[in-house]
């Protein structure tokens, strides 16, 4: 549902959107398309968001790609955890579409 929402919300922008349904496929997709920015859930089947982030940082080719976590938690602990895993940003659910677009726009300023 969130995947569909994000894809729909960003489809009206000029960005190309790719989605993956679990952690493993997500990592494969990142490796394949080399996106400008990754928006990821933390809780995902097969491989959670933190594992994906860790894998990206270990790979020389992918380490530079920023990753933004979308979490349902507003607990400080989990938000801190996001940044410990090298997150470039954090998006708390429920978020508005304009918020999402603004966050995406951040990464294309320069």
């Amino acid at each position: 549902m969130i995947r569909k929402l994000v894809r729909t919300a960003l489809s009206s922008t000029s960005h190309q959107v790719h989605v993956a349904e679990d952690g493993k496929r997500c990592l494969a997709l990142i490796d394949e398309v080399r996106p400008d920015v990754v928006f990821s859930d933390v809780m995902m089947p097969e491989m959670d968001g933190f594992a994906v982030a860790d894998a990206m940082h270990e790979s020389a080719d992918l380490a530079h790609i920023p990753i933004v976590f979308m979490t349902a938690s507003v607990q400080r602990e989990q938000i801190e955890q996001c940044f410990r895993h090298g997150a470039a940003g954090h998006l708390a659910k429920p978020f508005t579409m304009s918020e999402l677009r603004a966050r995406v726009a951040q990464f294309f300023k320069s």
Partner: protein
Amino acid sequence: MRKLPRSLRFYVAASTLYAAVVFFAVQFIYTFQLTQSGILVAQRDSGNVLSSIQIVSFIVWLGISLIAAAVMHRLATALAGARSAEVEAKSAGEQKEQELGSIFGLSAAIAGPLDLDQIGGYFAAAIRGALPADMTLALIVYDDVLEAFRTVAADGPRADRFRQKSYSTAELPAVVRTRVIDHRQSLLLADDKAHADTWKKVVEELPVLATAKSFAALPLVSRERLVGALLLIGEGVDDLIADKVQLPSIMGQYVAGSIHSALSVKEAEARAEREALVNRIAQRARASLDPGEILRGTVDELAKVLDVSRALVCTGATEDNLAVTYEWDAAGVAPVGIGAKHLPIARLSARLGRTVIVTDIRKDRRFTDPRTAQDVVSLDVIAAAATPIRVGGQLAGALSFSQVDRSREWTADDVRLIEAVAQELRVAITAAEAFERQRAAVVELERLNRAKSDFVSIVSHEFRTPLTGIQGFSEMMASEDLTLDEMREYAGDINKDAHRLNRMITEMLDLDKMESGRMQLNRERLDLNAVITEAADRVRPNAPQHPVSLRLDPLVGEMNGDRDKLVQVMVNLLSNAVKYSPNGGEIVVSTRAEGDAAHIVVRDHGMGIPHAALETIFERYGRVESPATRHIQGTGLGLPIVRQIVQLHGGTVWAESTVGEGSVFHITLPRAAAGAVMADAAS
């Protein structure tokens, strides 16, 4: 006839002589003067008149003398009587003075000391002088601690038989008891023959009197309180008449006040000592929350204070279950051993629900029954005191102290002490148990609290995800140009998310209702197999990779239950089986009739449940948290709801699993007596 005093005789003689001299002198002068003046007094023959005058006057003189002598004699006699009375009065005064002196001496002596024996000594010495040397005296004082009369001082030939002895009220002769103790009057048996009947009885009851001839018992009363008695034993008849016991009696009143004070001080001291001990015990009980430690410290201390050979703490909820759980033995005393159950005295106290004291078990009628006697002989105990320990009205054990070396007169103070300590012990044990319960409750609360906060984060995630969808799609619908199809699609997505939210809220409220007993079942006749089929049909469309096969026993047949709730149970179990089998796999539901019960088994080939979690998964928010399950949506309420519904139906649910191979959930539901069992389960 008393002889006249010499002075009187002398006086009579002198006055007679004087009368004669005066008479002759007068006669001579008359005669001479008359002759000188020429009047010749007629000679004797012619002097009749004159001589008759002379004779008369002589007689008158003589009479006056005699009267005077008689008066003098009377006076002298009176004087002599008065003088002798004065002498007598003087000697009596001296004796009184002496008595008073001894009384003052005694009161001065006893004003100082508060020691009973010292007071007794002074008293004996003070009255000794007033009594015949062969008389025995004994001062007995009522000792509140002993609850008996104790000999404080004794003197005389029979004194040795009084020393170091105490007499309970019952041991004193009946006549002493009623007259002296009860009515506080003196008892005087001045002559053994005159009071033969009484005497015989008194001697029987107080053998020390044998061969004595007289006996007195004087009460010592101070401020309305009988503090003791003075016993006097005379070897001679009439040694003890009222007059002779007067001084001892008066002195007794003096000494009674001092004895009273001494007793009060002693009692206060004993009370203070006992309170100090009980306080120490209570303090230790407060300082420690380990019942074992409280027990050990308390019992050791009490055993030493009581100077017993052995102290036992027995525990057990019934008289027959009492067993030794703690033992203290004096040096050289053989222990009975932890776990020993041969405890006739502790058991008797438990049965009677009060303290039992045994002065000498060999003479105790309660233990002379041949069977128990055998028991007792094997005990090596001679004297014992035991009190039950009750916690909240229930027998918890007994406290037993024993003497293996000697018989023992347990004092009322000993008993009070043992009971006070047993009281403190039960308070300590209760407090420690309460603390233990409290701590367990706190641990449980902490666990629940953690579970709750975990739940908050789970729920917040579960709620926020559909909310994000609702918010996002509705935002897009409102602000963007969308085609009608897109609009419809998004509206459908919003609707799905709203349903999901609703389902979660309903589950939470349902569980709350069930857990607080507010959930009512809508019972009806239903076919359990049909319920299972319906649930399977609902789950199948959402689980294309999980074939659900049913192996239903037609013998299960109809039962009484809430159709919707039972469908919910099966749906929950089946969706779990689907959710936790991410790699697919067959799910098998089978039913079997087992007597009055229906047995349902749901088997999957999923990830399985760790052994430690097989119970907790049925608890609220008790979901297994692991990386493997993190992404699986769930509120942690599905299985708690299953268990609540099954229990409301009077059934049971449990799980078996091998991690990595799959899980099996079992449900048994009573078919026939569902109503009765349900009432049971609900209570």
